[in-house]
């Protein structure tokens, strides 16, 4: 289908919005009425038509506005995009993966013409038409990773694989849930996850690493992760935390439905062919509480999950202070009826709110 790109902002006046279509395809991250960490990994082999799982790299109505926001973040802080010297080949791998995939999955938006190493890339939504020589950095305006990730939604961590570990050796990180690429670059899998509570003790990272080390070319994997954000702010970086942290205190019982957003990350994992690296795109989807509440199943479930979440997790995810106000709001959308398993909205089969 043709995508209408929103003219919207993720800062200042926050004109970001989700269309009805975007709400229905929002990746609601809870498949049951409670939540705990797990290695919730599955193959990334498509999904229901028009769902965010259907294409390998989902392009949606926020594409153009998100790329505009990324350019603003980078102009303000170039350290959000870094690549250690040995990662350039992996950057080319990533460029190829995204160009080939997007031109196959969205032929009306992206075109790739290849004649040996002479490539021409056409990105219609962003008005780009560039010719360059594949594997020749001097023919692109940026390094290969930066060039292509300025044109792809979501953050990208490019991981080197060695010593039976994964190393965060390159990345484009402008829409992160409060972690710093500049600080974490060069760390291994356990080190960059060090601040996460509870999951180490549960053996989550040992098992997740084992899974990731074995991802094969052409067989990508995926999982969902989530947190909470006040206002549709993409750049919730630690770098700018002293500027945006205060926004958490602007919630009131009146504005919470519009201001409080559930922030969901679609994390995917692709093996890169030449470098044997792994690319780990982290795609951020935002949805306001009031939009989520238009789906009765999600309304019931979100209340139960937030109510029963262990304190450590609510603290780590940064909403412990606002949890009571969230529950005051969310309980109005929970009538106690059972919910069906799975993340899908099921608007036609689930009962309407009985309140």
């Amino acid at each position: 289908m043709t995508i209408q790109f929103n003219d919207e902002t993720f800062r200042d006046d926050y004109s970001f919005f989700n269309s009805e279509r975007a709400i229905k395809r929002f990746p609601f991250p809870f498949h049951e009425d409670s939540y705990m960490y797990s290695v919730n990994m599955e193959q990334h082999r498509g999904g229901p038509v028009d769902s965010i799982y259907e294409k390998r790299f989902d392009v949606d109505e926020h594409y153009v506005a998100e790329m505009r926001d990324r350019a603003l973040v980078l102009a303000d802080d170039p350290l959000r995009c870094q690549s250690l010297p040995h990662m350039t080949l992996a950057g080319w791998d990533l460029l190829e993966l995204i160009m080939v995939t997007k031109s196959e999955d969205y032929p009306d938006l992206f075109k790739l013409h290849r004649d040996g190493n002479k490539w021409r890339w056409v990105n219609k939504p962003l008005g780009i038409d560039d010719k360059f020589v594949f594997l020749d950095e001097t023919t692109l305006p940026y390094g290969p990773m930066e060039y292509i990730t300025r044109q792809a939604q979501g953050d990208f961590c490019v991981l080197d694989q060695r010593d039976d570990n994964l190393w965060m050796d390159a990345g484009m990180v402008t829409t992160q849930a409060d972690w710093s690429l500049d600080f974490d670059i060069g760390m291994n899998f356990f080190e960059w996850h060090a601040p996460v509570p509870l999951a180490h003790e549960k053996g989550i990272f040992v098992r997740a690493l084992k899974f990731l080390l074995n991802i094969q070319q052409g067989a990508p994997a995926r999982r969902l992760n989530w947190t909470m954000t006040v206002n549709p702010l993409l750049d919730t970086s630690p770098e700018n935390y002293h500027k945006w942290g205060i926004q958490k205190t602007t919630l009131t019982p009146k504005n919470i439905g519009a201001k409080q957003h559930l922030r969901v990350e679609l994390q995917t994992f692709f093996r890169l062919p030449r470098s044997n690296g792994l690319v780990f795109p982290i795609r951020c989807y935002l949805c306001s509480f009031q939009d989520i509440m238009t789906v009765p199943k999600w309304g019931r479930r979100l209340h139960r999950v937030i109510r029963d979440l262990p304190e450590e997790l609510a603290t780590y995810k940064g909403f412990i202070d606002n949890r009571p106000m969230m529950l005051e709001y969310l309980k109005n959308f929970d009538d106690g009826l059972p919910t069906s398993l799975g993340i899908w909205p099921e608007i036609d089969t689930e009962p309407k709110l009985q309140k």
Partner: protein
Amino acid sequence: MSKFTFPESIKSRPVYGTLAMRDGPAHLLVADGHGAEAILDVATPIMMTKAHIIYLPKGEKFANRLRSLNPISFYSGPSYSAATSRLVKVLSDAKMGLQVYLAGTEGLIGQAQNAAMEAGIPHNAIQTEHRGSIARRMQCVHCKGITEDVEIDPFICEHCGLSLFVRDHYSRRLAAYQGVCIDAEDPGNIPKSKGIYE
């Protein structure tokens, strides 16, 4: 001086051991302050015939005792910054098999480890032993400035002036812990500082 036992922490936080002599064609020993005592403990006459010692006294009086170990080369300098070009030269001149021993404060160990890593030595092949001050080298995540020798939490970033809390999250590449604004969600509400491990 007795050794400080650091509390259990997260997986990015460095863990220090006790220096032990390893066979090698050359030995590079770098220390500050009370780190000298770790060198005095590990040094043997044979080791010293192939040793280069770089020492930053920081007000401590161990330089003469270290010098009297008779290493091939001995340097005592006023600061890490002053010693850096010498350290980098020694590392770049080094042959395969150089043994590296670092002792003293976390800031010294971290920076010297980073220099050795830049020279191609894997971080887990470098021996470290903590001695002396438990102060940390902190990076302000906001302005990126480094504040050396931080002993209290929270502390004031000496570059941008924000009050930062001291995290255990550590970057080998920066040789620093992360400092994050403590009153972002409640401006002006800054708890009284106390010692990092109090």
